[in-house]
């Protein structure tokens, strides 16, 4: 009864084309945004905001970037973490060497640098496909990290290779507490998610999907293959670069190559797969799952060991966690290969009918 679009007539093209055509959706999204911007910073404490919600948003942004490339344009990539690293290091250098630029332009420029790297490593996609391409993007992962570690310029010749991210401020308003960092992250993520949602409904997005579904057919109907594929790599790397900058400046507080290992690339790929390939919402759901699940497991294991009084070694717990995590991924793929976003769609279908049986 509550979720029904009957009676909502559209009398202009603008109404017909808005992002959320159903009124209930609009209300729900605005409520969610209001909740995220006002209530969460008010009730969240240091730990929740700094260690759980902010990284969740950052990973969601990175997953969104990968989803544009893998889910919409159909190019499998294992180099996500490298693009994030480019974003993080270039932001650090822009802030360091051009302090008059301000943090937001620095992040955008760093994102553009990541996009440039993405285009270079996207070039093989014009020749190779599928797993060959996936393995080829590993070259990006290893090469970029090697360059960042090898050439001192990127870390400003720091001896340890780990540098502290600078204090960030917009118009002399410092972002120094978890709440403020959270709000900055949230603002950027919301803007970029809306942009992605819109982009995927545009001609560009449709070209991506045509390439994903069958690239030969797409080129036959006149979609420029080179432009589309490289654009997908560029946009995706831009998103990942911005996510990397936020990861370093709003979450870790340090800029270090070790944070952007192959493991991170896989984690983000997991988020995309578990959340739903080719779905903006899915990126967020997947990121929430992958970020929250290890914390949940940790809570359960510590709770269990306290309740039973059995002293469990740390290694045992981490191995068990790894097993459960891997097992759950397999389980998820088996029961819902389309990801969490599909579950949400099913729920929406059900909600439309409720409370009537048909």
């Amino acid at each position, binding site marked *: 009864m509550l979720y029904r679009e009957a009676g909502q007539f559209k009398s202009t093209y603008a109404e017909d084309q808005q992002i959320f055509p159903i009124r209930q959706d609009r209300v729900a999204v605005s409520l969610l945004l209001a909740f995220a911007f006002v209530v969460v910073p008010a009730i969240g404490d240091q730990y929740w905001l700094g260690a759980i919600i902010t990284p969740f948003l950052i990973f969601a942004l990175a997953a969104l970037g990968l989803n544009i490339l893998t889910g919409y344009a159909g190019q499998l990539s294992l180099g996500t973490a490298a693009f994030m690293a480019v974003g993080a290091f270039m932001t650090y250098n822009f802030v360091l060497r051009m302090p008059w630029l301000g943090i937001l332009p620095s992040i955008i420029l760093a994102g553009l640098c990541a996009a440039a790297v993405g285009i270079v490593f996207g070039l093989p996609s014009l020749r190779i496909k599928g797993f060959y391409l996936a393995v080829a993007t590993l070259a990006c992962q290893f090469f970029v990290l090697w360059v960042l570690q090898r050439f001192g310029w990127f870390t400003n010749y720091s001896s340890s290779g780990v540098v502290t991210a600078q204090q960030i401020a917009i118009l002399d308003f410092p972002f120094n507490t978890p709440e403020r960092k959270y709000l900055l992250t949230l603002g950027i993520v919301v803007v970029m998610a809306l942009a992605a949602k819109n982009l995927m409904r545009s001609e560009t997005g449709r070209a991506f999907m045509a390439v994903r579904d069958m690239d030969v057919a797409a080129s036959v109907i006149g979609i420029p293959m080179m432009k589309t594929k490289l654009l997908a790599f560029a946009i995706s790397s831009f998103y990942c670069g911005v996510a990397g900058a936020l990861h370093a400046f709003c979450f870790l507080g340090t800029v270090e190559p070790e944070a952007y290992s192959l493991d991170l690339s896989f984690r983000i790929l997991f988020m995309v797969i578990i959340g739903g*390939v080719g779905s903006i919402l899915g990126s967020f759901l997947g990121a929430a799952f992958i970020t929250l699940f290890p914390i949940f497991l940790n809570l359960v294991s510590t709770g269990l060991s306290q309740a039973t009084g059995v002293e469990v070694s740390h290694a045992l717990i981490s191995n068990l966690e790894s097993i459960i995590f*891997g097992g759950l*991924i397999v389980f998820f793929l088996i029961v819902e290969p389309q990801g969490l976003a599909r579950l949400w769609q099913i729920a929406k279908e059900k909600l439309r009918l409720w409370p009537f049986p048909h």
Partner: protein
Amino acid sequence: MDIAFFVEVLAGGLLAGVMYSLVALGFVLIYKASGVFNFAQGAMVFFAALTFVSLGERGWNFWLALAVTLVVMVLLGLAIERVVLRPLVNQPPITLFMATIGLTFVLEGLSQLVWGSQPHGLELGIPDVPMEWLSQKWNINISQFDIFAAFVAGLLVAVLAVFFQKTRIGRALRAVADDHQAALAVGIPLQHIWAIVWGVAGFVALVAGLIWGVRNGVQFALTFVALKALPVLLIGGFESIPGAILGGLIIGATEKLAEVYVGPMVGGGIESWFAYVVALIFLLFRPEGLFGEKHIDRV
């Protein structure tokens, strides 16, 4: 340029390449028969080596430990087919790929849960020292163990070739690799075949695990040898056993030569990515690798 040194580097590289091929073979077997890109191969190598070495440390006889490990690996392969792959039949390749990454986590956790996470040394009775007569006569240092590894790899390929060409099961495997549906139509039980392939991949993982275990010690880093094998696959093609061997030789040789002659120019540490760049350049000319199957796209 010192010729003896060059030959030594080249030979060392070729022999290291053979060791990469050993891991790549496991990937190829499974990809060929079921179209699954099995990322868990590295974890399987680690699991096999760790099981063997732990049994050995508990005082088991060498052959008994080997036999038990082999049984464990085959059972593991069967279990993977039953629990992970069968419910995922007909899913897109990326889903299967992700499932094998999930499997990697499970195997890594499981092996360390059962056997502990401390590194082990492994001895097979062949010392990892340069062969004397070679170093005395031409001043070329080539490890005895490398030769042994190359011999094992050659033997393995020969056994696999005979298995694929001459046995009934092998022919069924090739039929499945060619065309799943046609194989089903002539009455080949697909699921048995997949179970067998995973069992064979477990066996290859055991061999690779033993060889790599001697070289680098049995420790968690062993799972990363899979990453070394991926460029080999790119060059050789995902579906070709000879390709895996040849790709391994190319990667091993260029990598070692670059490490010695190019590495110092850019400050070293290039072995983490050099193989991938070589593979990429190769792919620009042959997008399916040397022996990969040509795909003709039809609309």
